[in-house]
Protein backbone atom coordinates (compact mmCIF):
# COMPACT_ATOMS: atom_id res chain seq x y z
CA UNK A 1 0.00 0.00 0.00
CA UNK A 2 1.41 3.42 -0.98
CA UNK A 3 1.82 6.10 1.70
CA UNK A 4 -1.17 8.29 0.53
CA UNK A 5 -3.41 5.19 0.56
CA UNK A 6 -2.22 4.31 4.04
CA UNK A 7 -3.06 7.78 5.32
CA UNK A 8 -6.64 7.59 4.02
CA UNK A 9 -7.23 4.11 5.43
CA UNK A 10 -10.31 4.25 7.78
CA UNK A 11 -8.30 2.61 10.53
CA UNK A 12 -5.86 5.55 10.44
CA UNK A 13 -8.75 7.99 10.84
CA UNK A 14 -10.07 5.91 13.73
CA UNK A 15 -6.59 5.92 15.23
CA UNK A 16 -6.63 9.70 15.26
CA UNK A 17 -9.45 9.61 17.82
CA UNK A 18 -7.31 7.38 20.00
CA UNK A 19 -4.41 9.79 19.53
CA UNK A 20 -6.75 12.62 20.59
CA UNK A 21 -7.65 10.70 23.78
CA UNK A 22 -3.97 10.11 24.60
CA UNK A 23 -3.22 13.76 23.83
CA UNK A 24 -6.00 14.86 26.19
CA UNK A 25 -4.40 12.84 28.97
CA UNK A 26 -1.01 14.35 28.21
CA UNK A 27 -2.65 17.78 28.22
CA UNK A 28 -3.91 17.08 31.75
CA UNK A 29 -0.32 16.43 32.86
CA UNK A 30 0.88 19.60 31.14
CA UNK A 31 -2.03 21.55 32.69
CA UNK A 32 -1.15 20.31 36.18
CA UNK A 33 2.50 21.23 35.56
CA UNK A 34 1.38 24.73 34.63
CA UNK A 35 -0.96 25.07 37.63
CA UNK A 36 1.77 23.95 39.99
CA UNK A 37 4.35 26.21 38.32
CA UNK A 38 6.64 23.26 37.67
CA UNK A 39 7.88 24.90 34.46
CA UNK A 40 7.93 21.58 32.62
CA UNK A 41 5.21 22.36 30.09
CA UNK A 42 7.55 23.08 27.21
CA UNK A 43 9.66 19.98 27.74
CA UNK A 44 6.64 17.71 28.27
CA UNK A 45 4.62 19.16 25.39
CA UNK A 46 7.60 19.30 23.05
CA UNK A 47 8.62 15.71 23.67
CA UNK A 48 5.02 14.50 23.29
CA UNK A 49 4.53 16.32 19.98
CA UNK A 50 7.93 15.25 18.66
CA UNK A 51 7.28 11.65 19.60
CA UNK A 52 4.00 11.69 17.67
CA UNK A 53 5.50 13.21 14.52
CA UNK A 54 8.53 10.90 14.61
CA UNK A 55 6.61 7.69 15.16
CA UNK A 56 4.05 8.51 12.45
CA UNK A 57 6.90 9.33 10.03
CA UNK A 58 8.57 6.04 10.92
CA UNK A 59 5.23 4.21 10.47
CA UNK A 60 4.88 5.72 7.01
CA UNK A 61 8.44 4.90 5.99
CA UNK A 62 9.01 1.58 7.69
CA UNK A 63 8.01 -0.43 4.65
CA UNK A 64 10.68 1.35 2.60
CA UNK A 65 13.15 0.92 5.42
CA UNK A 66 12.69 -2.82 5.44
CA UNK A 67 13.76 -3.00 1.80
CA UNK A 68 17.29 -1.64 2.42
CA UNK A 69 20.17 -4.12 2.17
CA UNK A 70 21.08 -5.84 5.45
CA UNK A 71 24.56 -4.30 5.44
CA UNK A 72 23.05 -0.82 5.78
CA UNK A 73 21.15 -1.71 8.94
CA UNK A 74 24.44 -1.39 10.87
CA UNK A 75 24.77 2.18 9.60
CA UNK A 76 21.18 2.88 10.52
CA UNK A 77 21.70 1.56 14.06
CA UNK A 78 24.89 3.64 14.37
CA UNK A 79 22.91 6.73 13.33
CA UNK A 80 20.28 5.82 15.94
CA UNK A 81 23.02 5.62 18.61
CA UNK A 82 24.32 9.06 17.60
CA UNK A 83 20.88 10.64 17.68
CA UNK A 84 20.04 8.97 21.02
CA UNK A 85 23.35 10.30 22.42
CA UNK A 86 22.54 13.76 21.07
CA UNK A 87 19.23 13.82 22.94
CA UNK A 88 20.59 12.11 26.04
CA UNK A 89 23.52 14.52 26.51
CA UNK A 90 21.11 17.32 27.43
CA UNK A 91 20.44 15.51 30.73
CA UNK A 92 24.00 16.19 31.74
CA UNK A 93 24.15 19.79 30.60
CA UNK A 94 27.50 21.24 31.50
CA UNK A 95 29.07 17.83 32.14
CA UNK A 96 32.29 17.79 30.08
CA UNK A 97 32.17 15.67 26.93
CA UNK A 98 28.58 14.51 27.62
CA UNK A 99 27.88 13.83 23.93
CA UNK A 100 31.09 11.92 23.26
CA UNK A 101 30.62 9.86 26.41
CA UNK A 102 26.99 9.13 25.49
CA UNK A 103 28.00 7.93 22.01
CA UNK A 104 30.65 5.62 23.46
CA UNK A 105 28.46 4.28 26.28
CA UNK A 106 25.38 3.76 24.12
CA UNK A 107 27.46 2.37 21.26
CA UNK A 108 29.26 -0.12 23.48
CA UNK A 109 26.21 -1.18 25.50
CA UNK A 110 24.00 -1.62 22.44
CA UNK A 111 26.63 -3.15 20.16
CA UNK A 112 27.73 -5.84 22.63
CA UNK A 113 24.13 -6.92 23.20
CA UNK A 114 23.02 -6.76 19.56
CA UNK A 115 26.07 -8.59 18.22
CA UNK A 116 25.86 -11.27 20.93
CA UNK A 117 22.15 -11.84 20.42
CA UNK A 118 22.47 -11.92 16.62
CA UNK A 119 25.22 -14.52 17.05
CA UNK A 120 22.98 -16.47 19.45
CA UNK A 121 20.13 -16.35 16.95
CA UNK A 122 17.79 -14.37 19.23
CA UNK A 123 17.76 -11.53 16.72
CA UNK A 124 17.23 -12.61 13.12
CA UNK A 125 19.70 -11.38 10.52
CA UNK A 126 16.99 -9.49 8.67
CA UNK A 127 16.43 -5.76 8.46
CA UNK A 128 12.82 -6.13 9.64
CA UNK A 129 14.05 -7.80 12.84
CA UNK A 130 17.40 -6.14 13.39
CA UNK A 131 16.26 -2.52 13.05
CA UNK A 132 13.20 -2.53 15.37
CA UNK A 133 14.79 -4.76 18.02
CA UNK A 134 18.09 -2.86 17.79
CA UNK A 135 16.19 0.44 18.03
CA UNK A 136 14.36 -0.80 21.11
CA UNK A 137 17.64 -1.79 22.77
CA UNK A 138 19.22 1.58 21.92
CA UNK A 139 16.15 3.50 23.16
CA UNK A 140 16.18 1.68 26.48
CA UNK A 141 19.94 2.13 26.83
CA UNK A 142 19.38 5.83 26.15
CA UNK A 143 16.96 6.05 29.09
CA UNK A 144 19.60 4.54 31.35
CA UNK A 145 22.29 6.84 29.93
CA UNK A 146 20.09 9.90 30.48
CA UNK A 147 19.41 8.89 34.07
CA UNK A 148 23.14 8.30 34.64
CA UNK A 149 24.00 11.75 33.27
CA UNK A 150 21.22 13.48 35.18
CA UNK A 151 22.11 11.84 38.47
CA UNK A 152 25.85 12.24 38.00
CA UNK A 153 25.49 15.95 37.34
CA UNK A 154 23.21 16.37 40.36
CA UNK A 155 25.42 14.36 42.69
CA UNK A 156 28.61 16.16 41.73
CA UNK A 157 27.08 19.64 41.82
CA UNK A 158 25.42 19.12 45.20
CA UNK A 159 28.51 17.51 46.73
CA UNK A 160 31.19 19.70 45.11
CA UNK A 161 32.53 21.08 48.42
CA UNK A 162 32.67 17.62 49.95
CA UNK A 163 34.51 16.19 46.93
CA UNK A 164 37.04 19.03 46.89
CA UNK A 165 37.58 18.67 50.66
CA UNK A 166 38.55 15.04 50.06
CA UNK A 167 40.65 15.87 46.96
CA UNK A 168 42.53 18.35 49.15
CA UNK A 169 43.60 15.40 51.30
CA UNK A 170 45.52 13.88 48.40
CA UNK A 171 42.83 11.33 47.59
CA UNK A 172 42.86 10.23 43.92
CA UNK A 173 39.92 11.71 41.96
CA UNK A 174 38.29 8.38 41.16
CA UNK A 175 38.21 7.51 44.87
CA UNK A 176 36.96 10.97 45.83
CA UNK A 177 33.83 10.56 43.71
CA UNK A 178 33.38 6.79 43.79
CA UNK A 179 30.33 6.87 46.05
CA UNK A 180 28.63 9.44 43.82
CA UNK A 181 29.43 7.44 40.70
CA UNK A 182 27.99 4.33 42.35
CA UNK A 183 24.87 6.28 43.25
CA UNK A 184 24.49 7.44 39.62
CA UNK A 185 24.71 3.87 38.33
CA UNK A 186 22.31 2.58 40.99
CA UNK A 187 19.73 5.28 40.30
CA UNK A 188 19.96 4.84 36.53
CA UNK A 189 19.23 1.12 36.79
CA UNK A 190 16.16 1.47 39.04
CA UNK A 191 13.63 1.34 36.13
CA UNK A 192 15.32 -1.71 34.56
CA UNK A 193 15.66 -3.55 37.87
CA UNK A 194 12.06 -2.78 38.88
CA UNK A 195 10.78 -3.92 35.48
CA UNK A 196 12.66 -7.22 35.92
CA UNK A 197 11.34 -7.65 39.48
CA UNK A 198 7.72 -7.19 38.42
CA UNK A 199 8.00 -9.01 35.10
CA UNK A 200 5.04 -11.34 34.70
CA UNK A 201 3.39 -10.21 37.93
CA UNK A 202 2.67 -6.53 37.30
CA UNK A 203 4.42 -5.90 34.03
CA UNK A 204 3.08 -8.09 31.22
CA UNK A 205 4.92 -6.77 28.18
CA UNK A 206 3.05 -6.02 24.98
CA UNK A 207 5.34 -8.11 22.81
CA UNK A 208 4.64 -11.26 24.81
CA UNK A 209 0.89 -10.57 24.88
CA UNK A 210 0.95 -9.96 21.12
CA UNK A 211 2.83 -13.21 20.43
CA UNK A 212 0.34 -15.21 22.54
CA UNK A 213 -2.65 -13.55 20.85
CA UNK A 214 -0.97 -14.31 17.53
CA UNK A 215 -1.00 -18.01 18.37
CA UNK A 216 2.56 -18.56 19.63
CA UNK A 217 3.27 -21.07 22.37
CA UNK A 218 2.83 -19.00 25.58
CA UNK A 219 5.93 -20.53 27.19
CA UNK A 220 8.03 -19.65 24.14
CA UNK A 221 6.48 -16.16 24.11
CA UNK A 222 7.49 -15.79 27.77
CA UNK A 223 10.99 -17.08 27.04
CA UNK A 224 11.40 -14.65 24.17
CA UNK A 225 10.09 -11.80 26.29
CA UNK A 226 12.64 -12.68 28.95
CA UNK A 227 15.34 -12.61 26.28
CA UNK A 228 14.18 -9.11 25.28
CA UNK A 229 14.19 -7.98 28.91
CA UNK A 230 17.62 -9.52 29.38
CA UNK A 231 18.91 -7.58 26.36
CA UNK A 232 17.47 -4.33 27.77
CA UNK A 233 18.93 -5.15 31.19
CA UNK A 234 22.39 -5.91 29.78
CA UNK A 235 22.47 -2.95 27.39
CA UNK A 236 21.32 -0.57 30.15
CA UNK A 237 23.83 -1.94 32.64
CA UNK A 238 26.75 -1.81 30.20
CA UNK A 239 25.77 1.69 29.08
CA UNK A 240 25.45 3.03 32.62
CA UNK A 241 28.71 1.50 33.76
CA UNK A 242 30.61 2.72 30.71
CA UNK A 243 29.09 6.20 30.98
CA UNK A 244 29.82 6.48 34.70
CA UNK A 245 33.42 5.37 34.22
CA UNK A 246 33.99 7.94 31.47
CA UNK A 247 32.08 10.67 33.33
CA UNK A 248 34.20 10.07 36.43
CA UNK A 249 37.31 10.74 34.34
CA UNK A 250 35.89 13.67 32.38
CA UNK A 251 34.90 15.46 35.59
CA UNK A 252 38.56 16.13 36.40
CA UNK A 253 41.46 17.88 34.71
CA UNK A 254 44.84 16.19 34.30
CA UNK A 255 45.88 17.95 37.52
CA UNK A 256 43.02 16.24 39.41
CA UNK A 257 40.98 19.44 39.65
CA UNK A 258 37.20 19.05 39.67
CA UNK A 259 35.94 20.84 36.58
CA UNK A 260 33.12 23.35 36.79
CA UNK A 261 29.97 22.15 35.04
CA UNK A 262 29.05 25.18 33.00
CA UNK A 263 25.68 25.18 31.27
CA UNK A 264 26.10 25.19 27.52
CA UNK A 265 24.04 26.11 24.50
CA UNK A 266 22.39 22.75 23.70
CA UNK A 267 21.77 23.54 20.02
CA UNK A 268 23.88 22.09 17.22
CA UNK A 269 25.38 25.53 16.57
CA UNK A 270 26.19 25.96 20.26
CA UNK A 271 27.89 22.57 20.39
CA UNK A 272 29.97 23.34 17.29
CA UNK A 273 30.97 26.70 18.81
CA UNK A 274 31.98 25.06 22.09
CA UNK A 275 34.02 22.44 20.21
CA UNK A 276 35.81 25.18 18.24
CA UNK A 277 36.50 27.18 21.42
CA UNK A 278 38.01 24.12 23.03
Amino acid at each position, binding site marked *: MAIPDRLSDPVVVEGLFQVAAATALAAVVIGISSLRDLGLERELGGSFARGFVQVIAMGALIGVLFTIPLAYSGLLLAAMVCYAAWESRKRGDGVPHAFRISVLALGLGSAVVIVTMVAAGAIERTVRNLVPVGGMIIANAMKTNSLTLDRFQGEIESNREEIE*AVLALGVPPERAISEFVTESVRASLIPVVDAMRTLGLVYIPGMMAGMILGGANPIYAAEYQFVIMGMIFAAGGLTSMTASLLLGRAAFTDAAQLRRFEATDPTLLGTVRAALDR
Partner: protein
Amino acid sequence: MTNLCADELSYEAGGERILDRVSLDVASGETVAIVGPSGAGKSSLLRLLDRLDEPTGGTVYLDGTDYRTLPPETLRKRVGLVPQDPALRGGSVRENVTIGPRLRGKTVSEARLSELLDALALSGYADRDASELSGGEAQRVAIARTVVNEPDVLLLDEPTASLDSAAEAEVERLLADLLADGDLTVVLVTHDERQAERLADRVARLRDGRITDVGTPREVIA
Protein backbone atom coordinates in the same frame (compact mmCIF):
# COMPACT_ATOMS: atom_id res chain seq x y z
CA MET B 1 59.93 21.64 57.22
CA THR B 2 58.90 23.11 53.92
CA ASN B 3 59.22 26.48 52.30
CA LEU B 4 56.30 27.62 50.13
CA CYS B 5 56.79 30.27 47.48
CA ALA B 6 54.01 31.68 45.30
CA ASP B 7 55.60 33.23 42.24
CA GLU B 8 53.57 35.79 40.26
CA LEU B 9 50.35 33.77 40.66
CA SER B 10 47.47 34.96 38.54
CA TYR B 11 44.00 33.54 38.19
CA GLU B 12 41.14 34.44 35.89
CA ALA B 13 37.66 32.92 35.90
CA GLY B 14 34.62 33.85 33.82
CA GLY B 15 36.60 36.58 32.08
CA GLU B 16 37.36 38.22 35.43
CA ARG B 17 40.82 38.60 36.94
CA ILE B 18 40.64 37.24 40.49
CA LEU B 19 44.35 37.29 41.34
CA ASP B 20 46.99 39.42 39.71
CA ARG B 21 50.65 38.37 39.93
CA VAL B 22 50.61 37.48 43.60
CA SER B 23 54.04 36.63 45.02
CA LEU B 24 54.44 35.38 48.56
CA ASP B 25 57.29 33.58 50.29
CA VAL B 26 56.42 31.57 53.39
CA ALA B 27 59.48 30.28 55.25
CA SER B 28 59.63 26.82 56.85
CA GLY B 29 57.67 26.78 60.08
CA GLU B 30 56.32 30.27 59.54
CA THR B 31 52.65 31.27 59.80
CA VAL B 32 51.54 33.91 57.32
CA ALA B 33 48.03 35.33 57.53
CA ILE B 34 46.27 36.70 54.45
CA VAL B 35 43.81 39.44 55.35
CA GLY B 36 41.61 41.60 53.19
CA PRO B 37 38.01 42.42 52.39
CA SER B 38 35.48 39.92 51.02
CA GLY B 39 36.04 39.27 47.34
CA ALA B 40 39.73 40.22 47.51
CA GLY B 41 40.71 36.73 46.31
CA LYS B 42 41.87 35.22 49.63
CA SER B 43 40.12 31.85 49.24
CA SER B 44 41.05 31.71 45.53
CA LEU B 45 44.70 32.13 46.53
CA LEU B 46 44.48 29.18 48.95
CA ARG B 47 42.84 27.02 46.26
CA LEU B 48 45.70 27.86 43.89
CA LEU B 49 48.28 27.04 46.57
CA ASP B 50 46.71 23.56 46.80
CA ARG B 51 46.30 23.44 43.01
CA LEU B 52 42.55 22.85 43.29
CA ASP B 53 42.35 25.44 40.51
CA GLU B 54 44.94 25.96 37.82
CA PRO B 55 46.80 29.28 37.87
CA THR B 56 46.42 31.23 34.64
CA GLY B 57 49.87 32.66 35.28
CA GLY B 58 52.82 31.99 37.59
CA THR B 59 53.36 28.95 39.77
CA VAL B 60 54.14 27.76 43.29
CA TYR B 61 57.43 26.31 44.51
CA LEU B 62 57.65 23.82 47.36
CA ASP B 63 61.22 23.78 48.63
CA GLY B 64 62.21 25.09 45.21
CA THR B 65 60.30 22.46 43.24
CA ASP B 66 57.63 23.72 40.83
CA TYR B 67 54.44 22.17 42.19
CA ARG B 68 53.22 21.39 38.66
CA THR B 69 55.91 18.73 38.45
CA LEU B 70 54.50 16.86 41.48
CA PRO B 71 51.65 14.35 41.18
CA PRO B 72 48.54 16.18 42.51
CA GLU B 73 47.95 13.53 45.18
CA THR B 74 51.50 13.91 46.50
CA LEU B 75 51.25 17.68 46.47
CA ARG B 76 47.95 17.74 48.36
CA LYS B 77 49.16 15.28 50.93
CA ARG B 78 52.10 17.58 51.63
CA VAL B 79 50.03 20.78 51.39
CA GLY B 80 46.80 20.22 53.33
CA LEU B 81 43.86 22.58 52.92
CA VAL B 82 41.20 22.98 55.61
CA PRO B 83 38.22 24.52 53.79
CA GLN B 84 35.98 27.15 55.30
CA ASP B 85 33.03 24.77 55.18
CA PRO B 86 34.09 21.51 56.88
CA ALA B 87 31.98 19.57 54.30
CA LEU B 88 32.04 16.39 56.37
CA ARG B 89 30.63 13.18 54.93
CA GLY B 90 27.95 11.04 56.51
CA GLY B 91 29.27 8.58 59.10
CA SER B 92 31.25 8.83 62.31
CA VAL B 93 33.94 11.28 63.35
CA ARG B 94 36.44 8.41 63.03
CA GLU B 95 35.40 7.79 59.41
CA ASN B 96 35.72 11.47 58.60
CA VAL B 97 39.08 11.99 60.27
CA THR B 98 40.60 8.93 58.61
CA ILE B 99 38.99 9.39 55.18
CA GLY B 100 42.16 10.67 53.48
CA PRO B 101 44.45 7.77 54.41
CA ARG B 102 41.60 5.25 54.04
CA LEU B 103 40.79 6.30 50.46
CA ARG B 104 44.48 6.10 49.67
CA GLY B 105 44.54 2.53 51.00
CA LYS B 106 46.32 3.35 54.29
CA THR B 107 45.23 2.81 57.88
CA VAL B 108 45.44 5.11 60.87
CA SER B 109 46.26 3.49 64.21
CA GLU B 110 43.87 3.92 67.12
CA ALA B 111 46.69 5.53 69.11
CA ARG B 112 47.29 8.15 66.42
CA LEU B 113 43.57 8.83 66.11
CA SER B 114 43.20 9.26 69.89
CA GLU B 115 46.22 11.57 69.99
CA LEU B 116 44.72 13.76 67.27
CA LEU B 117 41.26 13.84 68.78
CA ASP B 118 42.75 14.74 72.16
CA ALA B 119 44.79 17.55 70.59
CA LEU B 120 41.62 19.01 69.07
CA ALA B 121 39.46 18.60 72.20
CA LEU B 122 37.50 15.80 70.56
CA SER B 123 38.29 13.03 73.06
CA GLY B 124 35.48 10.47 73.10
CA TYR B 125 34.06 11.76 69.80
CA ALA B 126 35.39 8.96 67.56
CA ASP B 127 32.08 7.13 67.26
CA ARG B 128 29.84 10.20 67.27
CA ASP B 129 27.75 10.83 64.15
CA ALA B 130 29.44 13.64 62.21
CA SER B 131 26.07 15.07 61.13
CA GLU B 132 25.19 15.80 64.77
CA LEU B 133 28.24 17.93 65.55
CA SER B 134 28.11 21.64 66.32
CA GLY B 135 29.83 24.09 63.96
CA GLY B 136 32.92 24.31 66.18
CA GLU B 137 33.16 20.54 66.56
CA ALA B 138 32.79 20.01 62.81
CA GLN B 139 35.53 22.55 62.16
CA ARG B 140 37.84 20.73 64.59
CA VAL B 141 37.08 17.43 62.84
CA ALA B 142 37.97 19.09 59.52
CA ILE B 143 41.29 20.24 60.98
CA ALA B 144 41.98 16.71 62.33
CA ARG B 145 41.07 15.26 58.92
CA THR B 146 43.83 17.34 57.31
CA VAL B 147 46.41 17.03 60.11
CA VAL B 148 46.14 13.22 60.14
CA ASN B 149 47.97 13.31 56.79
CA GLU B 150 50.94 14.90 58.56
CA PRO B 151 51.24 17.66 55.96
CA ASP B 152 54.29 19.92 55.70
CA VAL B 153 52.15 22.94 54.85
CA LEU B 154 48.73 23.75 56.30
CA LEU B 155 46.34 26.07 54.47
CA LEU B 156 43.51 27.33 56.68
CA ASP B 157 40.56 29.08 55.05
CA GLU B 158 38.66 31.21 57.56
CA PRO B 159 38.74 28.49 60.22
CA THR B 160 36.50 30.38 62.62
CA ALA B 161 34.37 32.51 60.29
CA SER B 162 31.12 30.63 60.76
CA LEU B 163 31.46 29.98 64.50
CA ASP B 164 29.99 31.70 67.53
CA SER B 165 32.44 33.54 69.77
CA ALA B 166 32.90 30.69 72.30
CA ALA B 167 33.58 28.11 69.54
CA GLU B 168 35.82 30.62 67.76
CA ALA B 169 37.93 31.13 70.90
CA GLU B 170 38.26 27.37 71.39
CA VAL B 171 39.24 26.63 67.76
CA GLU B 172 41.71 29.50 67.82
CA ARG B 173 43.28 28.27 71.07
CA LEU B 174 43.66 24.76 69.61
CA LEU B 175 45.14 26.16 66.42
CA ALA B 176 47.61 28.21 68.43
CA ASP B 177 48.70 25.02 70.25
CA LEU B 178 49.01 23.17 66.94
CA LEU B 179 51.13 25.92 65.39
CA ALA B 180 53.25 26.50 68.50
CA ASP B 181 55.67 23.67 67.69
CA GLY B 182 56.73 25.46 64.53
CA ASP B 183 56.77 22.17 62.59
CA LEU B 184 54.17 23.36 60.15
CA THR B 185 54.39 26.03 57.49
CA VAL B 186 50.99 27.76 57.58
CA VAL B 187 48.99 30.10 55.38
CA LEU B 188 45.94 31.35 57.25
CA VAL B 189 43.17 33.22 55.46
CA THR B 190 41.07 35.31 57.80
CA HIS B 191 38.86 38.37 57.65
CA ASP B 192 39.59 38.91 61.36
CA GLU B 193 42.71 41.08 61.63
CA ARG B 194 42.95 40.53 65.39
CA GLN B 195 43.07 36.80 64.79
CA ALA B 196 45.84 37.34 62.23
CA GLU B 197 47.72 39.38 64.79
CA ARG B 198 47.35 36.64 67.43
CA LEU B 199 48.30 33.67 65.25
CA ALA B 200 50.62 34.86 62.50
CA ASP B 201 54.31 35.67 62.28
CA ARG B 202 53.67 37.83 59.24
CA VAL B 203 50.60 39.27 57.57
CA ALA B 204 49.91 39.93 53.87
CA ARG B 205 47.08 42.22 52.88
CA LEU B 206 45.21 41.29 49.70
CA ARG B 207 43.06 43.82 47.90
CA ASP B 208 41.42 43.39 44.47
CA GLY B 209 43.55 40.36 43.75
CA ARG B 210 46.88 42.04 44.58
CA ILE B 211 49.08 41.96 47.64
CA THR B 212 49.37 45.51 48.86
CA ASP B 213 51.29 45.00 52.11
CA VAL B 214 53.45 42.30 53.67
CA GLY B 215 55.13 42.54 57.03
CA THR B 216 54.88 41.80 60.70
CA PRO B 217 51.36 42.03 62.15
CA ARG B 218 52.30 45.34 63.75
CA GLU B 219 53.52 46.77 60.40
CA VAL B 220 50.48 45.69 58.38
CA ILE B 221 47.63 45.93 60.88
CA ALA B 222 47.36 49.44 62.22
